[in-house]
Structure formats: structure tokens, C-alpha cells
């Protein structure tokens, strides 16, 4: 019987801590299985392109949609904030710096945790409760090699690609907004964009998006693999995958800012 926080707070906290610790242990176990499955290229190699298309290419429209409007809003809000106090070409600096360092990777990561993480958890969770993962094992397939490795590798490879595309479109949207709504010229916007730009910023964004790709796909796989029960269990796993990967993305975002900047 589950005990609520209000009825027995000590029991609730203790039970939650134990459950979380057990889950971290299980996640580590799946991580080890995944590492051990890496040499089975014959199993996951042919599945990788399909997963790259599903996780990466299919996510491009939503990532570009979010980035476009973020770029527009960034430019308008920067102009509103700078009015009279700061030269307007700083709009380019703010849009570029913020999109590359923060909003491009984080907003794309959060959007993809919903799209990709939920999809992986629901798919693998359904496979778990309908014994398809067991069936895979009886056919002498390593489930980690067949299901986890292609998804995680596709996430690690494709998240940076999607983030770079989204960031570029976001900056372009900020430029177009500056040009048509703020009476700025292209040279003005470019002056601001170049002002504080560092090549390291792009590397930083790529490192962040690599880690987000790993996080979203591995957490989606973990919750899918550990699904119990029926449709309710699949729903619960899907929700948990999105919530936990979103939280981890924000923690990682702070971690990379603290350690790399």
C-alpha cells in the first residue's frame, strides 16, 4: 500500500529515496548493458539510419518552429529593453549570443524531450508489456543492441544537428525581425552579432546538445524498458520520461554553464 506524504511523511520520504536510488541503479545497469552491446554493430548498425531519421529529421519542423518564434521575440524584447539606453545593434549581439549559448540548445532539448523521449518510452514500454522485448530475447537478440544503442547513438548524433539548424534559423528570424520590424539594417545586425561572438560558443552548444541527446534517449529507453502493467504503466513511463529528462536537461544546462564558461 502506498503511503501519502501527509499520512506518514518519514515513510514517504524514505520510500521515495529508496525507489529513486533503485532506479538510478537500474539506469546504471541498462547503461552497462548498452556499453556492452556497442560491439554488436551487426545488430544495431542497420537500424541506426532509421532512428536518425525518426529522432533527428522528423524533429526538425518542431525545432525550427520554436526557434523561429524565439528569434522573433528575442529581437523585439531586446529592442524594447535597449530603447534609448543601448545602441540598437546590440540586438544582434543579444539574439546571437542567447540563441547559441542557451535558447537554441535548451528549448530544442526540452521540445525533443517531449517528442523523442515520450515516443521512445511509449514504444519500448508497449513492447515490454506486450512481451515483444522478451520475444526479441528468445530470438537470441540482445535487446540493448537492438533497441537502446541505435536510439541513443541517433540522439547523440542528431541532437547537435537539429540544435545547430534551430539556432541558425532562430538567429535568422531575429535578423529578419530587426530588418523589417525594428528599422535596423543588415550591417547593423551583423555588427552586433559579431561583437561578442566566439567560436567556442558553438562548441559549447554542441557539447550541451550532445549531452541532451544522450539524456533524452537514454531516459526514454530506461523508462520504456522498466515499464510494468498495461496501458496505465505505459502512460506513467511516458510521463516520467518527459518530466525526468526535462529536469535533467535543466540541471545539465546549469552544470555546463558552471564548468565550461
Amino acid at each position, binding site marked *: 500500500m502506498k503511503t501519502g506524504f501527509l499520512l506518514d511523511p518519514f515513510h514517504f520520504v524514505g520510500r521515495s529515496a529508496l525507489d529513486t536510488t533503485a532506479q538510478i541503479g537500474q539506469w546504471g545497469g541498462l547503461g552497462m548493458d548498452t556499453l556492452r552491446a556497442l560491439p554488436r554493430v551487426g545488430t544495431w548498425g542497420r537500424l541506426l539510419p532509421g532512428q536518425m531519421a525518426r529522432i533527428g529529421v522528423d524533429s526538425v519542423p518542431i525545432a525550427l518552429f520554436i526557434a523561429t518564434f524565439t528569434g522573433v521575440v528575442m529581437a523585439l524584447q531586446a529592442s524594447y529593453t535597449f530603447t534609448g539606453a543601448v545602441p540598437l545593434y546590440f540586438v544582434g549581439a543579444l539574439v546571437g549570443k542567447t540563441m547559441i549559448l542557451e535558447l537554441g540548445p535548451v528549448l530544442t532539448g526540452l521540445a525533443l524531450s517531449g517528442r523523442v523521449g515520450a515516443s521512445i518510452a511509449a514504444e519500448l514500454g508497449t513492447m515490454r508489456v506486450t512481451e515483444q522485448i*522478451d520475444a526479441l530475447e528468445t530470438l537470441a*537478440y540482445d535487446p540493448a543492441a537492438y533497441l537502446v544503442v541505435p536510439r541513443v547513438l541517433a540522439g547523440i548524433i542528431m541532437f547537435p544537428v537539429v540544435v545547430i539548424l534551430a539556432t541558425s534559423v532562430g538567429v535568422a528570424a531575429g535578423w529578419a525581425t530587426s530588418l523589417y520590424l525594428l528599422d535596423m539594417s543588415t550591417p547593423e545586425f551583423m555588427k552586433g552579432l559579431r561583437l561578442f561572438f566566439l567560436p567556442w560558443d558553438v562548441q559549447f552548444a554542441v557539447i550541451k546538445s550532445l549531452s541532451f541527446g544522450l539524456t533524452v534517449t537514454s531516459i526514454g529507453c530506461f523508462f520504456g524498458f522498466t515499464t510494468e502493467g498495461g496501458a496505465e504503466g505505459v502512460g506513467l513511463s511516458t510521463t516520467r520520461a518527459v518530466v525526468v529528462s526535462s529536469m535533467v536537461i535543466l540541471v545539465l544546462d546549469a552544470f555546463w554553464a558552471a564548468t565550461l564558461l
Partner: protein
Amino acid sequence: MQDVHKAFGSNRVLRGFSLEVEEGETVAIVGQSGTGKSVALKHVVGLLKPDSGEVKVDGQDLGRLTTEQLYEIRRNVGYVFQFAALFDSLTIAENIGLGLKRIPGMTAGAIAERVRECLALVELEGYEERFPAELSGGQKKRAGLARAIATQPKYLLYDEPTTGLDPVTTTVINRLIMRTREELKVTSVVITHDMGSAYKVADRIGMLYQGVIRFTGTPEEVQACADPVVRGFIEGRPELLEGAG
């Protein structure tokens, strides 16, 4: 399987389960729903590991095998799942061919040919390009059987092969199990709570009750058994089971 114990949390499912299956025979394990029949079967392919006791296939203790050795054992075992467990995203041909891809030297042509043979055996010719969602329950079970026999295993494990099927489809599945045994000379374990099926397909029947095999014997011996638990189950009389220890 020798003295196998398995618990899930506080729920002790197997409490000293022992059963030996001889080469070439078909053994049915019967028992009420929730008594751990499927749990016992999953131990045979290493899908579950016993808390204690040993499970041997071909004389090898599964608990002592490396992952690769376990996969080698699994290549000799076909498993027919209760709800077929066909891969939703793959066609029937791809489902059946998946295990064949693991066999070294199997060309695409050889796989396609073997898929056709298996589908013919389960009377599903022409269903190669269908997806599992397009099949009825009975057709899914037959496709699951086709997938299990595709690699020409030495052993076949059936988990509730006739549950939820109409009497005609049940007869078709029973005939398929018998035909598979005769044509492929496989050793089979059939989990069921359908006594009609057990009598038809099994050489020997084991009754699982409270985590242990309560009785084993030929169908005739089971029908003549005086044990109230066995009688209660085969005659559908719960009062006999409740009175038994």
C-alpha cells in the same frame, strides 16, 4: 528444472518447482491462472532467473552460462507467446525472418523461402506483407508459431497457445502443435489451463499447484488421478481445491 524458487517481492510464485522433460516428448503444464506456469516457462530460456534451484537445457545450467552461451541455447528454442508478441512495426515476413537473420550464411533468398515454408505450415500463405494489427487473434497465434519454428529449434515452448480462441481455432492450433511435433520432431512444453488441449497434445501432463508440481502422468493417468487438487482442477470444482492442503 530442479527445486526452482522464484518470488516477486513478497509473492512467492515458485516454491520448489521440479520438472524433467525427455527428448522428443510433449509435456503440458496445467494449473489455475496465476499459479506461475508462465513464470516457470520463462526460466527455461533464461528470461527469468531463479532465486534458487537450477534450470538445465541440454545438460547446461543456464545460471552458469555467459551471455553468448545463453544466446546459443536460445537459438535451439522456439517460444510461442500467449498473445503472440509479434513486433508491431514489422510485417509478418519480417517477424518470422528476424530469428533467421541470426543464422550465419542465411541469404535474403533463403530467408524468404523459409518464411514461405513456415507460413504454409501454419496455413497463412499470402500473409507475408501484412502487419500484426491486420490479423485476427488466431492468425496472430499461428504467425507466432511460424516465427518460433522458423529457425528449426530442438525445443518449442508454448505459453497458453489456445487461450481466448474459439473452439474451431483451438482445434486448428492443437493440430498445428501435434503436426509440428511429428514433422519437426521437437521436444515441447505447453502451458495451458485448457484440459482439452492438454489431453490432445501432451504425452505427459504436470499439474502446478501452489508453486510446485503436484502430479505428473500421462493424460490417462491424470484422468484417473484421485488427488482432490487434480480432480478439482480438471472437473472445475473449486470446493475440492479449497479443501486440499
